[in-house]
């Protein structure tokens, strides 16, 4: 401690506060992951790999692993094609209304996967209200085409194309115009500039985006659960869910091994992404000039029409499906003027005790997690920026783990950690607190990174000025640091709220009667055939999501660069 204070010259109270908050943050985020790892490699307290070998040898494990890799792999491919096409066109050409396009392309990422799955099933298959109304529904008895590996792949692709789009667009925007102009002056034409200059420069960001998309698709629970379970097609996350839902905590040790298996594949992806990103940094040096805007000429209008048509197809059409389903009295009835009814809406929003409980739970969890994370992340990000101790740097490189790792992994880790609190007989499993703590761990990075980005641009003299007039650490935090990083903290808090409000994967494994979240309720309503009510609830949530996103967008000009995720 002494030597740390020596190095940086600040006050010792900073070092003490940093250590204290750092310990809390590490317990919150890294302890569960560590606990899971220990569980996998021990048997009743002794190091042992027998359990791991047994579970890995089961045929169900192997087929789920195969299914996971296939759906995540091909899903990533779909994301790659869609996201890359959009990114190239939006970042490099002179399309109009880019901001609106970018905003719309971000919506799929923010809409929870179970709602994506629900909405798409409403515009396909024999019982689709929309298709029936339009008179183009397949005959009764025909299979729902989405209840298949292809359906899962397609929806995973749409759900995660925003990730590819964002990372690639950021990479493309950092290519200075003069690099391309230099190539042109040297005589390179059209496609040649493209292949020999633009592509090599963007390859690292493309690879990084692909890796992280794969990890996210691998961890996705909502889509394979809604589409795969009816088709009896299990991926690793749904296998864990089914085992735990069927047999309870007796299979905890077994599902831990499964969780570690997902975790291991995910960590490989994360490492690949880090590697690519560090290589990308080389290219970014000193690029400050205007971003590219290649003229499309006569092709501009057709390209614009095509892009907006795709946006309509993946965003608006499924919403119409949801809306249609939510407005008919019973599933399968056609929508006509005389059949329109708000009964499902009324029932789900005002009558069902489960939904109002879920609203309260989700709202409380999301708001509570945002508030607590602001309290932890603001001082922590500031202190870590001021004094870069070795522990702080290590934590900085690991804190994304609970968010990047699939939600199933974190849930199992949380159960292991909290099912029996040390030195007591008490358990948090089955209470709302286990969900709350899991949210804190999972969304830590969502809060921390924007705050960190804004504090990096903060002039340290601002703090030193306060220090030189005698302000104590507490006063400086309260009067200078907090007010100045408030916009970033607000953006981070809204993002945490948004993601937590819609969250399904973690709560699907951690909920019990009385602690349902909105994600769980939609999932259960759909599972029990109450599609109308599920659709009405889903529409409500989509509405909340878009309002919150618009709110961030509205204030985005006041946020420092790097705070709003879709404005890189």
């Amino acid at each position, binding site marked *: 401690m002494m030597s740390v204070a020596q190095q940086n010259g600040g006050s010792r109270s900073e070092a003490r506060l940093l250590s204290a908050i750092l310990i809390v943050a590490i317990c919150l985020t890294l302890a569960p992951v560590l606990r899971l790892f220990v569980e996998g490699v021990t048997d009743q307290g002794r190091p042992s790999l027998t359990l791991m070998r047994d579970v890995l040898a089961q045929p169900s494990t192997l087929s789920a692993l195969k299914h996971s890799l296939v759906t995540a792999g091909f899903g990533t491919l779909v994301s790659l094609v869609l996201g890359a096409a959009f990114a190239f066109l939006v970042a490099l050409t002179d399309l109009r209304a880019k901001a609106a396009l970018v905003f719309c392309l971000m919506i799929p990422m923010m809409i929870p996967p179970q709602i994506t799955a629900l909405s798409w099933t409403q515009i396909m298959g024999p019982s689709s209200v929309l298709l029936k109304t339009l008179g183009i529904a397949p005959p009764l008895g025909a299979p729902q085409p989405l209840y298949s590996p292809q359906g899962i792949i397609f929806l995973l692709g749409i759900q995660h194309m925003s990730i590819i789009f964002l990372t690639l667009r950021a990479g493309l925007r950092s290519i200075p115009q003069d690099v391309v102009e230099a190539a042109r002056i040297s005589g390179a034409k059209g496609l040649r500039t493209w292949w020999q200059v633009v592509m090599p420069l963007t390859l690292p960001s493309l690879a990084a985006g692909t890796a992280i998309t794969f990890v996210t698709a691998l961890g996705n629970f909502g889509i394979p659960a809604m589409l795969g379970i009816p088709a009896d097609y299990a991926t690793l996350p749904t296998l864990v869910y089914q085992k735990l839902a069927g047999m309870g905590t007796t299979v905890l040790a077994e599902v831990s091994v499964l969780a570690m298996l997902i975790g291991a594949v995910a960590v490989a992806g994360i490492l690949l992404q880090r590697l690519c990103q560090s290589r990308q940094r080389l290219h970014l040096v000193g690029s400050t000039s205007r971003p590219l805007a290649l003229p499309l000429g006569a092709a501009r209008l057709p390209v614009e029409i095509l892009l907006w048509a795709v946006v309509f197809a993946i965003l608006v059409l499924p919403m119409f499906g949801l809306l249609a389903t939510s407005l008919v009295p019973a599933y399968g009835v056609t929508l006509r003027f005389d059949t329109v009814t708000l009964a499902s809406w009324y029932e789900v929003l005002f009558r069902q005790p489960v939904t109002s409980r879920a609203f309260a739970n989700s709202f409380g969890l999301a708001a509570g997690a945002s508030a607590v994370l602001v309290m932890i992340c603001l001082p922590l990000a500031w202190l870590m920026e001021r004094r870069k101790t070795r522990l702080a740097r290590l934590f900085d490189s690991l804190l994304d783990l609970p968010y990047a790792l699939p939600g199933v992994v974190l849930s199992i880790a949380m159960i292991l950690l909290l099912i029996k609190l040390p030195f007591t007989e008490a358990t948090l499993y089955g209470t709302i607190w286990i969900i709350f703590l899991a949210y804190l761990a999972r969304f830590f990075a969502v809060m921390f990174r924007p705050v960190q980005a804004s504090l990096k641009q903060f002039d340290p003299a601002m703090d030193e000025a306060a220090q*030189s007039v005698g302000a104590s650490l507490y006063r400086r935090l309260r009067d200078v640091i907090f007010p100045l990083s408030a916009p970033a903290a607000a953006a981070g808090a809204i993002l945490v709220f948004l993601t937590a409000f819609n969250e399904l994967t973690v709560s699907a494994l951690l909920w019990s009667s009385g602690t349902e979240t909105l994600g769980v309720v939609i999932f259960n309503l759909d599972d029990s055939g109450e599609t109308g009510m599920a659709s009405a609830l889903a529409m409500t949530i989509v509405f909340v999501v878009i309002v919150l996103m618009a709110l961030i967008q509205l204030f985005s000009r006041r946020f420092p660069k790097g705070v709003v995720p879709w404005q890189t």
Partner: protein
Amino acid sequence: MADIDLSSVGKTFAGTPALQDITTRFDDGEFIALLGPSGCGKTTLLRILAGFETPTSGQIRIGAREMANAQTGVSLPPEERNIGFVFQSYALWPHMSVWRNVSYPLEIRRFSKSEIARQTDAALASTGLEAYADRMPSDLSGGQRQRVALARCLVSDPCAVLLDEPLANLDVALRATMQGVFTDFHKRTGATMVYVTHDQAEAMAMADRIAVMDQGRIQQFDTPQTLYERPKNRFVAEFVGRGTVVPVQEVTQAGGARQARILGAEVAVQSARAEKQVSHVCLRPENLTISESGDLRSKVARVTYMGGKYLLETVTDCGARLFAETRARFDVGAQLGLTITTPWAFSED
């Protein structure tokens, strides 16, 4: 009451020394300028005084209080030193009004409401900012912002004020005005001020004493006049006032006066009494007169018009470059004679 004492202060950043063995004393109420080329350690010295950095060796006392001591590990945090700091970037808090920026130090010290109001108004008045009290910092000009920063650091009556290139972001005209503001302020309050700059004219115009620094060491610490007229070594001679340093031969001592052969000419030189031997002299335009009969033959290499006079860069027959000033115009390539009058000599190894 608040002399600043440094004894063998050193600072190393990851193995490379930024400050080495600084032992000096700034007297109470002095206006000190720290002058030196970029990277010589001026900012580092100031930040160590303020407490933002801790020295790796040596100790610092202000008045009777020990501020930092590398041996015992004592280091008073900046907030307990009662030192004012004016930043090059002003470092005004953008979310507070001018009035709140200035009153904040008093708020920290838990003064009563009326006392805060009284002192804040006084500080604003003394920097001519009464009319701007309710503005936000973003609505002020650069000079006004700098004055707010000054008012903020004065209001708490610090025992010393440290200023790190406070005028570097301002244009030339505004700089002159602000120099006036600083000197007036210093006269009125009598606070010890340590002022970092790399503008010599600024340092000469404002400071009681100037510490010329190079490579982490103080090369000379004297009044502006002494610094200019009696440089201690080659670095100071060349850095201050663009002197040309040339070696001397055949030094002869006759009583109190010294004679030496400089570039082939026999010249009387001045030097510090303590200096046993001298090896070099510093030649400035004032030491050179142009005359037909001058015994130092040289050729004009470049002519710069300085407004009312010309600066000639000449090359002597033996290859030395000397700067001379003249009211008459010469052409490049013209031959002329130079006479050297009483240059300052020092010893340099």
